[in-house]
């Protein structure tokens, strides 16, 4: 199938049709199957074709005729129908952009990743005090603002997450260090000034260099994290 998907621009020099040699049954089948509102079975087709026509053979011939075309003749159970070639399904889509606001949970997780990176899912949960739903991390990965950057050298070797350059550009930050620290957060009133003395806000860094307690990602990790439908973090079962 993949080979059909190749983009080829090749000159057609010889007519692929040998005109005239094509049995009329094929034209009739073509028209019937094209216009039918639902797949048709062989018996229904035979009823419409001239007496004595070999419907089975004609269908097979037609299927072969269309095998390499943008439209294929496919059998669905015992019935036949024209369908867009599988490899062109992408063509049958219209892409639109819709603006979505991140959920509160996603923003919270994002904020923790930004300040505490590199950080594992378990650590995020520890800070937030709630379990992070898979969907939340998926959405964040989809934004392209976070990325899995390594694996923590601890049992289970969980993925560590960090922010990306597009995170910086989304939030108009020149560098991650521009994220306000404790004093600035207090100054803007976002943090209560009467917080316990032990309260600290880390000085965040998105230095891509792995930390001492990080291992590099493994080959499969990125695909895993990019495929929206797949659990991005699955430390227990490395494939």
């Amino acid at each position: 199938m993949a080979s059909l998907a190749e983009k080829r621009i090749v000159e057609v020099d010889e007519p692929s049709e040998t005109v005239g040699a094509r049995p009329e049954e094929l034209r009739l089948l073509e028209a019937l199957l094209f216009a039918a509102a639902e797949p048709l079975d062989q018996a229904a087709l035979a009823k419409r074709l001239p007496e004595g026509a070999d419907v089975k053979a004609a269908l097979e011939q037609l299927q072969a005729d269309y095998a390499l075309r943008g439209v294929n003749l496919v059998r669905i159970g015992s019935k036949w129908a024209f369908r867009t070639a599988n490899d062109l399904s992408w063509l049958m889509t219209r892409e639109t952009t819709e603006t979505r606001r991140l959920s509160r949970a996603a923003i919270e997780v994002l904020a923790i990743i930004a300040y505490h990176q590199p950080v594992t899912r378990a650590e995020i949960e520890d800070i937030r005090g709630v379990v992070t739903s898979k969907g939340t991390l998926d959405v964040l990965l989809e934004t392209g603002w976070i990325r899995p950057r390594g694996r923590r050298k601890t049992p289970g070797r969980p993925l560590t997450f960090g922010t990306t350059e597009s995170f910086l550009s989304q939030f108009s930050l020149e560098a991650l260090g521009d994220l306000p620290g404790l004093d600035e957060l207090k100054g803007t009133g976002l943090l209560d000034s009467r917080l316990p003395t032990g309260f600290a806000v880390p000085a965040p860094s998105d230095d891509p260099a792995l930390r001492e307690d990080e291992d590099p990602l493994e080959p499969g990790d990125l695909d895993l994290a990019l495929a929206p439908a797949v659990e991005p973090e699955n430390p227990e079962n490395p494939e």
Partner: protein
Amino acid sequence: MSAEILSFETGLPAAPPPVDDEPALVVDVEGYEGPLDLLLALARQQKVDLAKISILALADQYLSFIEAARKIRLELAADYLVMAAWLAFLKSRLLLPEPATAEGPSAEEMATALANRLRRLEAIREAANSLMTRPQLMRDVFPRGEPEQIAEIKHPKFTATLFDLLTAYAAQRQQRVLASVHLAKRTVWSLAEARATLERLVGIAEEWASLDEYLMSFVGDPTQRATVFASSFAAALELVREGQVDLQQTQPFAPIYFRKRPPQPASDVASATEQPAG
């Protein structure tokens, strides 16, 4: 010239035409769509090219048709009567010699114009017929019976502001700190822990040493200082009571010094201040 026949209703008589003893003419207005249509039908009876038709003869035919219809008291729509009047006028003009200084179109021109209208109506009818015989959609030719849907893929473009981000971060960190009273307790040194630690420390402190310093170096996490101080002090008092340790403090809030009590039988009790350390 057409203006006078336009503004009339087309309501045609529904009465079936009674068969008259008029031999050539069957009066059946119902089948006609107005006077032009009737004229065209009559013209066809002349079996000549409309371009060469005798308008005079046509006018006669029309007028006798109308006459017949009136004789049998068929109610004719006004359109037909107006046309009859106009044709009678045209007929008289055609029969009389043209006045030398004619105003407006001549009788010949009027006749030609009528012939042209008939030709045009006939032409458009032929065109309509051939249009209707063209391959028609859903009658002769068919589109795809089962069109496939174009699936819409939505690419989300996420939005969030730095303010959202900071608010979220500050809020959850703060909430966590303020809401975790019981968790703070977990990091509190138990008296037993403090005592065990102090016993270890005391084991090496033969000379007077500052408890503060020891505790400082021991407690890395500043958030735990308070609890470490409190527990240690309580434990120290206990050790003093047991006679294992001497404590000394020169004045309130001054550093507290301690040492392993030297083995001496005398009970010169070490002076422990009543002021606990912060």
